[in-house]
């Protein structure tokens, strides 16, 4: 659609949990950058965490996709695309995505990447230790 501005990312926050209320949301453990395996053996282990997004977009909808990228190989693990609906172009859309039981194969450095409409936008570093 001509004349529309590009989307604006206002927030991309990793956290341990999100609680939703009628008028707000609470982010617990916001800014998490290190995950320690609590399982035996330490790897592979599954872990659940959240990504909180604020995106303003004049289009009625956009496709959000998260990817976990292993820094040691550049290999990405993509999630399915999620349709983000922007009901009002003048309001920012709030989105909480649970990355459920992601299996970390090895310790090391990972990046949680935000892809929007097939484009890489941002990433967050996530260290994973045994």
């Amino acid at each position, binding site marked *: 659609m001509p004349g529309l501005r590009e989307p604006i990312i206002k927030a991309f926050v990793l956290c341990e949990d999100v609680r939703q209320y009628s008028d707000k949301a609470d982010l617990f453990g916001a800014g998490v950058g290190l995950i320690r395996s609590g399982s035996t053996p330490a790897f592979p282990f599954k872990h659940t965490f959240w990504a909180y997004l604020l995106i303003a977009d004049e289009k009625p909808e956009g496709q959000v996709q998260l990817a976990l990228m292993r820094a040691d190989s550049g290999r990405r693990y993509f999630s399915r695309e999620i349709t983000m609906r922007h009901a009002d172009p003048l309001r920012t859309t*709030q989105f909480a995505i649970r990355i459920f039981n992601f299996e970390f194969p090895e310790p090391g450095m990972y990046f949680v990447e935000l892809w929007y409409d097939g484009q890489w936008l941002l990433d967050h570093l996530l260290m994973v230790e045994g």
Partner: protein
Amino acid sequence: MAANCNETRGIGPLQVFDAVIIDDPAEQERLNRTRLGPEVRNPAILVRYYRDSKRPIRKELEWFANHPSLESAIGDAAMSIDGEGKRFSHQHRLKRAVLESARKKLISSAARLEKCTTFEELHGIVESVLKSVEGAGELFFYDVSLRIGSYKGIFPLKVFLHAGTRKGAKALGLSTQLSWLDMISLPDWLQELQPYEVEDFLCLYKDRLTSSKSASAS
């Protein structure tokens, strides 16, 4: 991204979803090939990842640098045994008899290896000693040389190529006609690394570099 966000007013209701990781390997492969990450525009980002990640090679070289004697370093290098007594992944598929044969041949050449003052000299001796060992190839020659070199404190001055590193080098448009690359022939951002790190980098990121190249071309 547009910078001006003053015109948006208020925040809509929270939408909650689960991100389901795609479990179809073919689809993951396709996405890895076609999605253009920041490293496509700037492959130097991969060097940042490499520098910051826990590189197994660092641990491997430290392990050999701390061996008590040249003979023990040669023995573990040939048998491809790490600090926990496990076999290094590069040599997983080699039969034990191949490793044993290599160990015996190298131990009998310990005096020649002792006298080496450059990695290239060391690599030449290892290659000539082991080329008669059936099942041993260029990656094994290089890995063993690097391990023994680490004990002696001598490292390559150029980047040695084998199957994995060749693939990575080709993806960067580098000539792979010779069995090695001069550091000067590499892009500036890759020259930040030591030659043995470049070898490791090209091997580790070969798939990423290859898919980035094909995605850029299409």
